[in-house]
């Protein structure tokens, strides 16, 4: 403010009006800027929160609790006839073997209810593990081995601290008695957490400790391969035609508007299309990578076409003119000169489209991918589920142990998505050309 002015005299000149308001205006400027900064920080916080929450919930799923027991492969129970016939061995009562092992580890437990509680500490998948051991090596019969057996999901949750030992017993899933046994095992060094290979090698299961993502991963893999095989040629071909050959008329205009609209149609509508057309009319089998890939291809096509057209547009006309000038046919010009130059851009768009397809869930619910399928799929027409749908199904399960499995599956899914997007970015950096 100018201090040459007489006090009390009202400011007359415009500059004084402006000067008088400057402080307020600058404060407003600062406020506006702060609001902008706050918005960015808020957005970034959401990213951080989302990832932190998922990782905090899921990182424990990569280890799994095992209990070590001295297992006696009693010949009397497993192979009474002594024939070592694989069929007898496969059908033998391994549950009893585990019960005996537990009894020898906890000789003081004799009461009926307590023995049952003791047996429930071991996963229901443990007997088949023992069976596989014996079938692989029948010489085990008659010997006693220290075997690490998979623990039940409740014990696993207790060991990972997801079940609070300080809660009153009535509010806790694991009773005092069992906690005491776990503490005994801990003091003897007979219980420990190891890397969770089951999670990566098996299909889903009703038992959290036996559930894995291998089936869903393979399903996603088959689906994605097929989606790529269908949508990439069609997308590139359509882009090539629309951008380079199509006459500019109402029909191509309509196709253009239509493609832009398809890119914004809710994905669930594609599921309805898949259900009504592919499954009901064409009889494509439900729950298979084939039908999923058909639906996802239609869904990703607009993305690929739009990206491919942009890539074709960025190739300068001089390339085409030069090729035509030395006598190449229009199609040769495209195939030999324009397409190779536009390929990096097209591939980038395709990878982004594939990442979309990998994370998509809603349309797949419509076409039967939510069936409970334990087997790992073996081809394009075997029933399967995919990773995002598996996440959806597990998120619905009530067991506490499924929460960490779901989060871990999400981590795997996000890892793949990040890899794909990084690939797209690298591709762009490596091959992008400014003409």
């Amino acid at each position, binding site marked *: 403010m100018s201090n040459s002015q007489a006090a009390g005299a009202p400011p007359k000149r415009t500059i004084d009006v402006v000067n008088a308001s400057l402080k307020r205006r600058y404060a407003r400027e600062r406020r506006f800027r702060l609001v902008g900064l706050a*918005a960015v920080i808020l957005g970034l916080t959401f*990213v951080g929160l989302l990832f932190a929450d998922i990782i905090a919930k899921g990182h424990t799923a990569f280890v799994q609790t095992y209990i070590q027991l001295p297992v006696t492969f009693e010949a009397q129970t497993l192979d009474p006839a002594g024939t070592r016939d694989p069929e007898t061995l496969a059908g033998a009562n391994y549950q009893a073997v585990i019960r005996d092992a537990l009894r020898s580890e906890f000789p003081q437990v004799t009461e009926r209810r307590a023995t049952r509680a003791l047996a429930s500490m071991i996963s229901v998948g443990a007997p088949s593990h023992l069976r596989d051991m014996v079938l692989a090596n029948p010489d085990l019969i008659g010997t006693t081995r220290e075997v690490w057996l998979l623990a039940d999901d409740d014990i696993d949750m207790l060991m990972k601290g997801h079940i609070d030992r300080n809660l009153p017993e009535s509010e806790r899933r694991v009773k005092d008695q069992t906690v005491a046994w776990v503490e005994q095992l801990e003091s003897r060094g007979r219980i420990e957490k190891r890397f969770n290979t089951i999670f990566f090698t098996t299909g889903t299961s009703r038992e959290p400790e036996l559930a894995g993502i291998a089936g869903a991963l393979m399903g996603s893999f088959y689906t994605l391969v097929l989606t790529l095989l269908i949508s990439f040629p*069609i997308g590139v071909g359509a882009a090539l035609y629309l951008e380079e050959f199509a006459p500019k008329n109402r029909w191509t205009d309509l196709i253009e508007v239509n493609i832009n609209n398809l890119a*914004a149609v809710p994905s*669930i509508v594609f599921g309805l299309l898949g*259900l009504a057309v592919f499954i009901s009319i064409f009889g494509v089998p439900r729950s298979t990578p084939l039908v999923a890939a058909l639906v996802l291809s239609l869904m990703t096509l607009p993305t690929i076409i739009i990206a491919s057209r942009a890539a074709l547009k960025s190739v300068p006309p001089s390339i085409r003119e030069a090729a035509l000038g030395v006598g190449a046919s229009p*199609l040769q010009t495209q195939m030999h000169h324009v397409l190779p130059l536009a390929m990096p851009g097209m591939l980038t768009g395709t990878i982004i489209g594939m990442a979309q397809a990998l994370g998509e869930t809603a349309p797949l619910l419509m076409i039967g991918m939510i069936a409970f399928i334990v087997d790992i799929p073996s081809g394009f027409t075997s029933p399967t589920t995919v990773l995002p749908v598996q996440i959806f199904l597990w998120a619905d399960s009530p067991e506490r142990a499924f929460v960490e499995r779901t989060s871990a599956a999400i981590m795997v899914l*996000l890892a793949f998505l990040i890899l794909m997007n990084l690939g797209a970015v690298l591709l762009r950096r490596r091959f992008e050309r400014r003409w």
Partner: protein
Amino acid sequence: MQTSTLLIIVLGLMSLAYYVGRKRAIVSAGGAGRISTLHSLPTYYGLYAALWAGIPAILLMALWTAFQDEILVTLVKAELPGSMLEGLTPGAVGLLVNDIKNLASGAIVSRVATPEMQAAADRFSLFSQIAVWAMWLGVLAFAVGGMAFAWARTKPQMRARNRVESIFMVILVVFSSIAILTTLGIVLSVLFESLRFFQEISPLDFFFGTLWSPQTALRADQVGATGAFGAVPLFTGTLMVSTIAMLVAVPIGLMSAIYLSEYAPRRVRSWAKPTLEVLAGVPTVVYGFFAALTVAPFIRELGMSMGLDVASESALAAGLVMGVMIIPFVSSLSEDVINAVPQAMRDGSYALGATQSETIRRVIIPAALPGIVGGVLLAVSRAIGETMIVVMAAGLAANLTANPLDSVTTVTVQIVTLLTGDQEFDSAKTMAAFALGLTLFAVTLVLNVIALQIVRKYREQYE
């Protein structure tokens, strides 16, 4: 005898045909030194032969697999004794045919097999074996025949390149019309089922009814299964969740777009923008999980501590998380339009003495407004069509309420629940899902067309 094996064999024959056709062209020209007497390069004669070997065979295969089942079923049904089909509804006939098929393939059958059924099943498996053999023979004959045809026609004066290129052009045209076919398929599939639905339930009841309870009663005296299809609670629920989402996404998205494009130093921008865009790449099922297991319990606790009654599947939780999902969508679209405002307008404003924020508020935003509105409309259409977040975090109860702490349901949630249960394809429940799908498609289509039109007009204005 898998179809995929046959496909691989046909592909093998195509490469053989390519090789043979190319060789034949060179030989007919009189050796590798004289290929200049050919009309086209030898490669084109090879491609010509390969296309002749492949396309008819693959077309035959596609048609055969599409119609084989239907023809076989008709044949088997025609041979069934009339007494078995008498008085059966079409649905029951379908079940019977299914059982026959299962019997033929050795799968579990839903009833005790009668001798007639066993005979029909035997016939079915015999016919399907014959059909498979016939298809293999037919397809292979087409492939070899096509190859021979091309071989016979390969002469130096044949215009192989022109022919190959015109086939390629036809393929390209077919590819680009798939987009149109998709739209057509969507419209027809939802329209057809919706029309059947509206024959049973009047459209007035559907669009203006306020009670939604799609469980149709199996018995007359069943409680709570009225089969009411008034979709208003669904529309209001969708509207509420989308409104909450937009209240989160528009201010945050717009302000961060403004900050990033006008204020942020280049270095901050170069990492903050891609990080924000990570939000757009996260699958919606992950947001759903986050909403259902983290945000919803948090809001519930918070509400309880303030003495509010919050439903465990509140509209607020789903809406908030959906808003987070849409932030990058709004911000990148607004950033595009803000950047499209010519620098001259900014400079003019600064020259008049405006501060940066005044320039943004008085000049840039008004100039970019149409584009921003277009972007927001696109975001709204996305919020309306979003499925997984609401399926996992919003409820199933169709409450007609204005309280965001209550549980509401949305159009997409109901489509999923109606279609993922077990019911026959022509029940009113299933068809209701298609009617909802039609509504959803129509609303989002209108929003998208308007939005894209606005954005396009706006771009042209400053180009």
